[in-house]
């Protein structure tokens, strides 16, 4: 055997070993995200250069190109997926640490939270319903404004699809992060607490990151809105869907 054949044979052996083991897609998942994050950093964290969106395109492209069934991909990637649960629980820690800021503006904050959350869910569900979207799509759209971990859990709990919910949440976050700040400027919502709270409620973590770029107070309130809206949305989505007869 010449050298080339040896190398080819070696690669074949490696591929045969890797494909059934979870290591291959676990490595691809972590590697693709690390690469996407570097690209986003090089583009100065522009909202359109979202690392998660870029990583999804890269990995989905590779999975489709190699003809890998999603279940085989997930057998490796599940080790990352499992961390979502404890990370969601961990959201209580920053929320608890900002309790003093919450208490100072408690009443306007709770009023904006309840009204904003109800408006956000009912408007999205109402529009999709008017367009004749099937129940599974509406259930995946209803939690669109909350952080992906919660929205995926909520969507699945009410008969939606987690992957569809995650995609919708990312698009909503990018849109809100780009449009929110200039729009509220034009609407003369200039108080940083009110502006940050509105952006965090409508555009979760991506909106929060955008607020921190301009004003730390707006960023703090955006983070509080993200946490509280995540909790309230989990409880309200089933109620709203029920009211729409779904």
């Amino acid at each position: 055997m010449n050298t080339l054949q040896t190398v080819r044979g070696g690669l074949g052996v490696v591929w045969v070993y890797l494909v059934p083991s979870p290591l291959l897609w676990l490595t691809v998942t972590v590697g693709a995200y690390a690469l996407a994050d570097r690209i986003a950093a090089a583009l100065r964290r522009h909202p359109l250069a979202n690392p998660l969106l870029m990583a999804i395109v890269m990995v989905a492209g590779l999975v489709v190109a190699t003809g890998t069934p999603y279940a085989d991909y997930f057998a490796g990637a599940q080790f990352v997926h499992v961390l979502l649960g404890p990370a969601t629980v961990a959201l209580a820690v920053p929320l608890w640490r900002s309790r003093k800021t919450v208490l100072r503006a408690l009443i306007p904050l709770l009023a904006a939270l309840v009204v904003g959350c109800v408006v956000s869910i009912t408007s999205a569900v109402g529009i999709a319903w008017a367009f004749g979207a099937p129940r599974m799509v509406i259930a995946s759209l209803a939690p669109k404004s909350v952080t992906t971990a919660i929205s995926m859990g909520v969507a699945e709990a009410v008969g939606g699809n987690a992957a569809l919910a995650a995609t919708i949440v990312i698009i909503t976050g990018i849109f809100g992060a780009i449009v929110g700040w200039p729009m509220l400027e034009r609407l003369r919502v200039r108080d940083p607490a009110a502006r940050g709270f509105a952006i965090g409620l409508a555009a979760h973590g991506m909106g929060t990151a955008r607020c921190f770029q301009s004003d730390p107070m707006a960023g703090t309130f955006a983070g509080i809105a993200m946490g509280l809206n995540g909790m309230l949305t989990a409880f309200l989505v089933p109620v709203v869907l029920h009211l729409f007869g779904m």
Partner: protein
Amino acid sequence: MLGAVFLLLACQMAGEAVARVLALPVPGPVLGMVLLFVLLAARGAAMPAFRRDELGHLNGVSGTLLANFSLMFLPAGVGIIQQGHVLADNWLGLVVAIVVSSLVSLAVTGWVFLAVSRMLAR
């Protein structure tokens, strides 16, 4: 540090158990988050054993997890390859719903926050 990891997992497990037992359409980890918040708030009186260094570990573990939060959505996000037909059939309704609902929520939330703050300031 293991204590903090255990606390996060235990809260999630309790949340999952409550959601199943009471048949709540709320994700278990969200209930776990509420539980952890309550535990932190009740810490001084109800749990004198929850010392300062353990809180430091919890801050550290939570910080590490949340700093890499986005990565954890990737496996589920790749699942979109199974949803191509759903997106193709419903893209217009989804785009209009996302755009209009986001604009309305931004405006209404900002206005309510401002209006109630001003009412209280008077």
